[in-house]
């Protein structure tokens, strides 16, 4: 059997590389799943603190799932106390060419519809979809982050796209 270089993540360099590799993905995962109200940034920190405190028990290959599970649980603990209000960033893209009032109103309307439709997606769909569409991640990367198959990611994203478009049309 191959001897592992590290059998836990207590080594500071290893810990730091794990942070660099996973923290942003974890943040985005939490953000797209739970919205910004529940402070995903803090949850990432808390999850990494927990990882450090338990570093002797966590082998490096388990670090990712430890972090995601811990952060997710931290979120869920808070969700239990308050209903999720999805409030994604309201900032609008600034590349308008013709800004007449009617167009602006239409845009505003569309934006609101989109927001509602996003809220109606399942958490799994929303996370995969926004990571792909907004963060520009490819299926394979998302599959690695979420620890699921590429096929499943494809399904989630395509399903999300179809559902969004249908919802927007209906609203």
């Amino acid at each position: 059997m191959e001897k592992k270089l590290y059998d836990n993540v207590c080594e500071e360099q290893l810990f730091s590389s794990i942070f660099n590799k996973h923290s942003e993905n974890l943040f985005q995962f939490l953000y797209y799943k739970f919205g910004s109200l529940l402070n995903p940034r803090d949850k990432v920190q808390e999850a990494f603190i927990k990882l450090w405190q338990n570093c002797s028990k966590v082998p490096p290959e388990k670090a990712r799932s430890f972090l995601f599970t811990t952060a997710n649980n931290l979120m869920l603990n808070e969700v239990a106390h308050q209903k999720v209000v999805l409030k994604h960033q309201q900032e609008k893209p600034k590349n308008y060419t013709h800004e007449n009032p009617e167009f602006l109103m239409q845009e505003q309307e569309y934006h609101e519809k989109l927001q509602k439709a996003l809220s109606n997606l399942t958490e799994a769909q929303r996370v995969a979809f926004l990571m792909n569409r907004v963060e520009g991640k490819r299926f394979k990367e998302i599959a690695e982050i979420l620890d699921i198959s590429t096929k499943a990611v494809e399904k989630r994203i395509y399903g999300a796209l179809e559902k969004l478009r249908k919802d927007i049309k209906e609203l």
Partner: protein
Amino acid sequence: MDRETLILKWLNNDLNDQELNAFKALDDYDDLMKLQQNLQGFKAETYNTSEEYDALNKALQNKKAQRSKSSWVNPFFRVAAILALCFGLYYYTTTLDTTVTTAMAQRTSIELPDNSSVELNAGSVLAFNKSHWKKERDVKLQGEAFFKVSKGSTFKVITSNGTVTVYGTQFNVKQRNNYFEVICYEGLVGVTYDTLETKLKPGDRFLIIDGKMIAKEKELRSKPSWINHESTFESMPYSRVIAEFERQYAVSVKLENVDATQLFTGSFTHDDINLALKSITLPLNVTYNKSNDKITIKGD
């Protein structure tokens, strides 16, 4: 290529030029582009990994500081507590009085910390404190003992009847029921009795029986007789002689028709019970009867 495949390829950024054209030709191309553009507004807040890492390190350092308080200060206090306990126990046991007890028919000699020596007669208790010895040479005595005190600070023998203060000497203290006798053999001895101190020069004798001071003639021997395995009495009530006899041989003596208050002068040996019995009966014209440890002395 069907619509779904094209869209999937678009989603995964996999379209080649030809496919891109086909995708652009789709009915819902504009729709998708509008959606795509609007979705950008939902982008997650920017996340600066190195800033976040610094913040994490800060948080961890605080945790570490907290942890170190509980993780090494606590064991430190544990060790300190054990040490304090051990030291306390050590201190307590070493400052306890050392007590030497002799049973009936038993004698012992004790070496005190400063090489003073004590001969402890039968049925006596001597207590002294080793750790305080340098500060105060006090011994507590119940019974009879012969002291050879080496030079040094004041040496005190504390008994329930009185305190003997020694100024470097040899002396005998005898404290029995209502009986207190001090004989000085060498040097100078002070006897405090009822807050009154009497100084004894060599050969002087201090005797209290039943609270009454009794004057006696000078002692001429250089040592008490019991040191040489003999008890000597001069005009001593007979009951005291019998009590001493009982102590030396660990027996009980019953008197029948014998006046216990009559005075006895003489001695008995500690080595031969029959000879000793004769010594204390013949002069008084009484007979004795001995069976096991019970001795009966009969008068006429």
